[in-house]
């Protein structure tokens, strides 16, 4: 009870002095930000870079649909990423396609997160019948194989009405269940903490207990689920578009790949046509995943401690080795510490 459970945890009392002097008021949100590590920096650079590209580049490039007579030409000064079979500028297409993919990723991410929060958190908080029903529902959605269902639904919707939103809703509806289960588990654990009981005892209304007491403590989990949903949505949409079931009149990285495939880019060796969109998807997914690892450290502080721990352990081992060497000849500097 009075001892640190982990023998190697630094004594708690010793940190107090430094804390006392630090009186700056901090918002609770500060605590939720991940620590900056080289990995997180790489992830953020990738995500932010691609997002900026997707948002700004379409204003800087020409018309992606403009057909020219210099089809399938490699990268050149005029067209840095070459042209397609019909002479369209690949860079311009890439700019618009990135924007399209980000758009769908964001919409689906938000929709799926809202759905999973509702079914996961509210269900778990209410408990009993509501929880059972919501659990059953998310389990049913979980066992439905996602992509085939999306294909079936997209196939049924006539091509004319298959807009961006339709595809987004379809992807969101098939993608929320796993997150809901994760959130439910987390909520079940937070719901039983003493501070939730204390807020109920002091007379808080249920919606306030959920939104103000429980939800903030779930934010890292929600953020991580959101990031997952975005990755899944971009990949899912790319898959759909690639087989020709994507949103009509929209251009995404998936449709680019679809046209590249139809234009025999691979057999013709026109790498500049299919590599940029493929790489864009891969890099964005990678960036988001790396960001997600950092969010994991907030959800599970053990991971962070493990990282710090490894670092400190290396340092301590080094010092201890040196001490062992010096044991015969006592080192005044070492023993003075």
């Amino acid at each position, binding site marked *: *009870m*009075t001892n640190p459970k982990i023998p190697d945890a630094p004594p708690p009392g010793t940190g*107090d002095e430094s*804390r006392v002097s*630090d*009186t700056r*008021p*901090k918002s*609770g949100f500060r*605590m939720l930000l991940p620590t900056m590590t080289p990995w997180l920096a790489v992830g953020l650079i990738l995500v932010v870079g691609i997002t900026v590209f997707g948002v700004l580049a379409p204003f800087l490039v020409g018309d992606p649909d403009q057909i020219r007579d210099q089809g399938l030409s490699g990268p050149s000064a005029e067209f840095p990423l070459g042209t397609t079979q019909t002479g369209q500028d690949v860079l311009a297409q890439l700019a618009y396609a990135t924007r399209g993919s980000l758009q769908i990723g964001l919409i689906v991410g938000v929709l799926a997160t809202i759905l999973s929060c509702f079914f996961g958190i509210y269900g778990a908080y209410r408990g009993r019948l509501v929880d059972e029903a919501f659990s059953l529902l998310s389990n049913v959605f979980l066992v439905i194989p996602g992509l085939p269902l999306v294909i079936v639904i997209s196939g049924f919707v006539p091509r004319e009405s298959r807009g961006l939103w339709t595809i987004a809703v379809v992807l969101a509806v098939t993608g929320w269940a796993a997150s809901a289960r994760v959130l439910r588990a987390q909520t079940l654990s937070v719901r039983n*903490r*003493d*501070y939730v*009981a*204390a*807020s*109920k*005892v*002091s*007379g*808080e209304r249920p919606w306030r207990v959920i939104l*103000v*007491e429980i939800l*903030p*403590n779930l934010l890292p989990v929600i953020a991580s689920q959101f990031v997952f949903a975005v990755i899944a949505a971009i990949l899912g949409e790319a898959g759909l578009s690639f087989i020709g079931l994507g949103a009509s009149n929209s251009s995404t990285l998936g449709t680019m790949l679809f046209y590249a495939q139809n234009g025999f880019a691979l057999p013709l060796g026109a790498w500049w046509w299919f590599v940029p969109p493929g790489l864009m998807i891969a890099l964005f997914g990678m960036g988001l995943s790396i960001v997600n690892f950092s969010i994991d450290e907030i959800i599970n502080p053990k991971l962070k401690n493990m990282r710090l721990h490894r670092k400190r352990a290396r340092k301590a081992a080094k010092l201890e080795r040196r001490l062992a060497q010096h044991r015969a000849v006592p080192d005044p500097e070492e023993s003075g510490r």
Partner: protein
Amino acid sequence: MTSVHVTDLVKDYKLRSGLKRTRLRAVDHVSLELVPGRTVALVGESGSGKSTIAKILTRMERPTSGTVDVRLEDGTAVDGAAYRREVQMVFQDPFASLNPFHSIEHHIARPLRIHKRTGTNEETHARVIEMLERVNLSPGEDLAPRRPHELSGGQRQRVAIARALAPGAQVLIADEPVSMLDVSIRLGVLNLLGRLQREDDLAVLYITHDLATARHFSDEIVVLYRGRVVERGPSDAVILDPRHDYTKLLAQAAPDPERPGRLAADAGPVDRDAIDNGRCYDHFAGQWRDAGVPTESKERSA
């Protein structure tokens, strides 16, 4: 000035293992009385039902049967939102009972707002500071914006006490309020509770497994064993002159440097199942009564 009359409280939990359903009686016909200015200690080991009683008193659980009757000084029964205002609780673990996300100010400002004790933001803030200083957390201005993890265990428990008193509570349930704290600050927190009780004339239920603090902190001790009250009476009488086998066992087991060498002289492990919890010694009445039966038949048997 609020008092609580607990009569014949029973709480059953349904257990299900496979197809078999069994019933576990966690609390068996417990009656208690909390009056302003007095502290009643509820003593027992884990699983004796003391935390269940706390949960029922704070309306986190419903009793299977029995009544909890809370009345103001003028005799009006307290219910609904007023119940939450009158009866508050201090939890055992100060590391778990404060929300890590929110500032100290939030924890005290919320009950003030919920129970409409303050109006404007400035007024609320001033009240929060006042509450903090009342529990000896000063300067309050300095502590209010901090978050729980920046405070020591003792400071957190003081915040928890301030939160419990914020609605203007007159009945305080303290569930092992010091058992998670470092020994050298335990008495400080108990002293604080004692002072607040005297100032506000609070009715306090002190739930604990520590006989020594129960004796010195409370006026009356109620010993709980396997859901039933087996002994009750003035603190000194129960501890210094225990009558029930279980109370004797507890008093014998608590370390006491005033009586060294007892360990070697001890008889050895006692068969717990041989201890009878069907009887209760009442030091006030000076006689044995039946335990685990409704009050009326208890009186008949007496």
